[in-house]
């Protein structure tokens, strides 16, 4: 669907039986927070997601340069269309009085969440470019999911899986669930991996065709799964198939108890993924981490229509999800965080697109979030040697705060200590 699959090189041998299932041991004391991570795959352009209104002149110059010739390279959002979504670091400031930032005009719903004090905007966030120069999709997504840099060739576990293992998190369906259809590295470590569900979750089930001998067929299927495997890879497949069968009832029970029929009719794949997560949370799946993904941000050409569509979808889907949880009394434990491979180049190419860049923005949303702006954009007149926005907030700083929210020890998981940003 969206993300290229990663698992640990350390799974090597696959002799260990991974597994999502520690479900029946007691829940460790500590944080009860639930983190919903959303990958914006492809590298989202931060400058047109959150426009630095306070530097609008420099922004316009970068996005509508007179030399080389405009309007071919124009990616600027006109000032007038930013009036309704303008905001300041203080969420209480109205759009009409705000002077510092503005959401993309497609993100009206996000502006409302911001005004409610539930949305944190982390500006200027990214990978330390001096250390990771490649601006590569895989490396960017890998770094964000492992909380490391320069380890791509050796393979590290997902920081969220490591955190949950360290706090002994469990759940009726395991501690981690991906609804993107894929197993993300974020939710894999040497001991556990996420339960991966289709969207909608109702489709998670064994199919046999419904002939006369169903009972015998399923009995024989279980016998076959119980046979000694002939190789480590076979043992791994067997463990996944056994686990999937064991969790099928649990997923179906939640799916039928929580039909989600009062959810606004999903308009997109992301919308539908988030709807599934809402059903699972409210239905009592008990997982501490959920993963969804939205693809299409690699806008090397025709950026404007593409990104506007994606941001409209993101904004609406997040708003639907948050308000649904709120209505069902389930929003108090849930924090939603977005991340993306990297940002994009401030100046456009001649295809009306932008190439791979550095710093961008990410969002953190939830009742426990202290709304506002964290970090800042760099001086837009001082780009780095490659013409990119220099990082102002190390991506591991955001991760560090999220590990803390999950009840983990950020220094132990990341192997380094980051100052607290304080958005949650």
């Amino acid at each position, binding site marked *: 669907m*969206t993300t*290229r*699959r990663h698992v640990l090189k350390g799974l090597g041998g696959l002799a260990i039986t991974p*597994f999502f299932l520690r*479900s*029946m041991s007691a829940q460790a004391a500590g944080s009860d927070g639930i983190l919903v991570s959303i990958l914006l*795959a*492809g590298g989202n352009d931060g400058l047109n997601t959150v426009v630095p209104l306070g530097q609008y002149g420099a922004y316009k110059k970068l996005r509508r340069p007179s030399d080389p010739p405009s309007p071919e*390279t124009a990616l600027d959002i006109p000032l007038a269309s930013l009036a309704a979504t303008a905001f300041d670091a203080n969420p209480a400031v109205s759009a009409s009085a705000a002077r510092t930032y503005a959401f993309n005009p497609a993100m009206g719903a996000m502006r409302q969440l911001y005004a409610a004090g539930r949305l944190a905007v982390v500006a200027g966030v990214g990978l330390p470019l001096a*250390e990771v*120069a*490649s*601006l*590569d*999709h895989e*490396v960017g997504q890998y770094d964000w999911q492992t909380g490391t840099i320069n380890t*791509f*060739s050796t393979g590290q576990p997902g920081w969220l899986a490591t955190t949950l293992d360290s706090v002994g998190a469990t759940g009726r369906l395991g501690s981690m669930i991906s609804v993107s259809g*894929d*197993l993300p*590295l974020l939710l*894999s470590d040497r001991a556990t991996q*996420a339960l*991966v569900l*289709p969207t909608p979750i109702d489709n*998670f089930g*064994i*199919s*046999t*065709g419904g002939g*006369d001998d169903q009972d*015998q*067929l*399923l009995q*024989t*299927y279980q016998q076959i799964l*119980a046979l*000694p*495997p*002939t*190789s480590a*890879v*076979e043992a*791994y*497949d067997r463990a*996944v198939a056994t686990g*999937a*069968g*064991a969790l*099928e*009832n649990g997923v179906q029970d939640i799916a039928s108890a929580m039909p989600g029929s009062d959810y606004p009719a999903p308009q997109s794949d992301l919308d539908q993924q988030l709807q599934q997560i809402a059903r699972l949370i409210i239905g009592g799946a008990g997982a501490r981490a959920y993963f969804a993904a939205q693809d299409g941000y*690699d806008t*090397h*050409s025709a950026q404007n229509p593409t990104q506007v569509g994606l941001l409209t979808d993101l904004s609406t889907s997040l708003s639907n999800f948050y308000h649904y949880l709120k209505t069902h009394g389930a929003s108090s434990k849930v924090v939603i965080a977005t991340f993306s491979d990297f940002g994009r180049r401030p*100046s*456009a*190419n*001649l295809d009306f*697109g932008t*190439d791979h860049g550095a710093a961008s923005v990410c969002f953190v949303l939830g009742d426990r979030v202290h709304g506002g702006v964290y970090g800042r954009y760099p001086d837009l007149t001082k780009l780095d040697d490659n013409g990119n926005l220099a990082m102002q907030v190390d991506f591991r700083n955001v991760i560090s705060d999220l590990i803390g929210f999950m009840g983990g020890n950020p220094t132990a998981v990341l192997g380094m200590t980051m100052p607290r940003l304080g958005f949650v």
Partner: protein
Amino acid sequence: MTGIRLRLSAGMGVALSMVVGLANPPPAIADQPPTARAQVQHLLRRLAFSASPATVSAVAAAGSDVWLRAQLTPSGIDDSAAIASLEPEPTTTNPDGTIPNEFAYERRFIQRAVRSLRQVQMKLVLHWIDHFAIGDEKVHDQAMMSRYETVLRNGGLGNFEQLVAAVAAEPAMLIWLDNDGNAAPIPNENFARELMQIYLMGVDRLNADGSVIPGPNGNPLPNYSQADVQQVALAMTGFNVVWNDSDPNPNTGFAVSFDPRSHYPGARQIMGQTVQVPSNATCMTAIIHFLVRQPSVAPFQVRELLQRFVTEAPSPRYIADIVQVWNAHLDDPNQLANVLWAIAHHPEFNTTYRSMPKQPVELVLGALRQLPGVLRPSVGQGPGDDLVSGGWLTLLGQEPYFPPSVFSFYRPGQLSSLTNTNLVLQRTGTFTDVAGSKPSDDTANVLIDIQALRTRVGSTAGPKIAAYLLDALVDGGTPALQQTMASYLGAKPDDDQLRGALWLLLNSPSYAVN
């Protein structure tokens, strides 16, 4: 899709005991060296889309080398019957804007992979459409997609540099990675970056044995910098795809033009060297000629080939040995065929028996070849349509030509990431449909012909049928699996029991390994 969802067990009690069991799986039976027949089955699984028991016997009788030598010169294999059986090649968009033969190019890949006698060629196509992944969702032209596969098929066993040059010049690739319209003075870097990172050499500088070369600070040395990406992008400016709307022919309906006015002229500084770049359409081949000779390219390509065809964790020795062959044939028009031959003849090849998960495409197409698989048109659908456009391969996470992103379905070496709970349950649906559909069902376009299967077995006795299916699908199976299947089939199984046995074996962990 005819599947009906059934629950494994009535309550959580059984599920609980299964969960507990997960923590302590039974130990794997000690890996035993494959028998001579299993070695042939291993070769046919890895370098082809598997084969029926009869074909396995024929290859074993003639000798694997005879088979492989013929396969590596596909033009010498008469494939006219398979080619004649394909549905028509798709054309470009109709004048009224509708798309003719939607997904025909994709179904044709499946039809060819199942029916072609040029099996190694088609297995290489699967490798290259993952390596040089392009997506219909951006290319949006059925004829272009179809033509792209022709390039991969014709060049997939040839010379790597020529293959890269041909891929780079294809309209589908120009559109997919935006080299169409890449113009001076502000280049579009998309193609340049992926050319270096995904198609040729990767991010890290490699030794000949595939190990990473560390820099002074201990971090991997990069192959190239951002400045190199920009230089390569500038060198490849000036190309455009142009359409001739009145001509829907896939080979003439569009063309690539080079406009010197939008080309950025002059020599370029790339990776510390000066590269002369002609200011004409050969600028791209000049750059590719320079890049494919960089030292990381051979270990990067060889490692990936080994990871796709042999083992997820090739030894440094295996990589280094094959890199030697790669480099010795750098200008050989049959470079890749020589590399494949060396891979299959390396002492490590047979030590990798049953050591990889099957990719979903292998899982499904293998079944259609090992058993009498049928791809046929159904109501309003082309042959094999149930596998594509939202069908089974989509649900299994590997629909050819619909990669999740610019990189493809999984990172080479991380194939096991495809084995997740969603996949194992989706495959029960797939095989319910494929093994359970009856010829009388006019909506089924992918199925196993049970009567043909009975003819192949040549006996109605349960034990004979069990032995045949076990040989066809799981190299004979363990004694415990043999006993389980014989017991399920009984003395004289009817067609429904036969379908049930297929479902059981196709969903067994034994069938899921490669």
